[in-house]
């Protein structure tokens, strides 16, 4: 029986990132996962069985990857959970700090040698996807190596197939979640280039 992954229609750049992480993970790791896009008031949830579910996106990616993570992966995840998360939470996504993008590039380079689609890479990609969704690729322009990594990762066939779930990546107006159902959701952000 497939696992069920519920993702909301996003109302913020942070939610776009969180959706990207779990949807890409479900596509990349070939897991038997059924993705369901809920309304804007729902939350990310991976139902594992009748008694167990996960709601935190990074934990979901790690669970789906079924792999033992390297220290480089944990370093990537640590940067994502602090620096990138806080940046995305600000709402109006800013450009990446040069020191952070350089550090990410170095770690992604090391991770890429053994497992280019590791959980650490998927988690960082999801976070960057949110930044690119709101600021375009200029968000990564501080670091050419990181931009190249992002392009290569997003061009991978399994990643591309995951990112086809458009409803999960187009930001809808927050009020739409509480307003009358007759009110159409308003797209405020163009999809990032794929």
């Amino acid at each position, binding site marked *: 029986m497939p696992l069920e992954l519920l993702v909301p229609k996003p109302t913020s750049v942070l939610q776009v990132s969180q959706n990207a992480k779990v949807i890409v993970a479900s596509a990349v790791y070939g897991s038997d996962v059924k993705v369901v896009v809920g309304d804007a008031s729902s939350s990310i949830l991976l139902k594992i069985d009748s008694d167990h579910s*996960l709601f*935190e996106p*990074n*934990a979901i990616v*790690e*669970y789906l990857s079924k792999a033992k993570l390297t220290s480089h992966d944990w370093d990537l995840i*640590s940067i994502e959970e*602090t620096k990138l*998360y806080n940046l995305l939470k600000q709402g109006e996504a800013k450009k990446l700090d040069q020191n952070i993008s350089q550090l990410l590039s170095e770690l992604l380079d090391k991770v890429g040698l053994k497992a280019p689609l590791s959980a650490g890479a998927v988690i960082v990609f999801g976070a960057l996807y949110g930044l690119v969704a709101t600021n375009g690729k200029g968000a990564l322009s501080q670091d050419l190596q990181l931009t190249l990594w992002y392009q290569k990762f997003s061009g991978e066939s399994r990643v591309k197939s995951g990112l086809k779930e458009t409803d999960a990546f187009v930001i809808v107006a927050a009020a739409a979640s509480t307003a009358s159902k007759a009110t159409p959701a308003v797209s405020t952000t163009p999809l990032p280039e794929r």
Partner: protein
Amino acid sequence: SRTNRDQANAALVKLAPADLTEIQSAELNQWLTVSGRFPEGIEQLNETLKTRTYILETHEATVADAVVLSRIAGTVKSWSNDEVKLNRHIVRWLDLVQNVIGIKDEDKVTVNKDLEAPREIK
């Protein structure tokens, strides 16, 4: 990254992460991430503890209980009576965990067990 208090509390539990099942390991990662963002996620913790003695549904306290305890103790200490009632499952769990893992008395959070809260519909 864990603080010194996280490390000290984690050292008090006997059950090693290697003893956890695949799902419990995933839940451990989840709570280590979520507890780093408290007060975000406190509601979810209270909901989880509604039906569990320990966070990972184990028979004894794990590193998840120890680390989450270290990260929430200061917040619980500052709660008003209404907040204690609202988060009663966290308060019950905290009182249990701080006693079973052997937190020093001077570091324990004093829990008011006499507050009456309306019965919850489960």
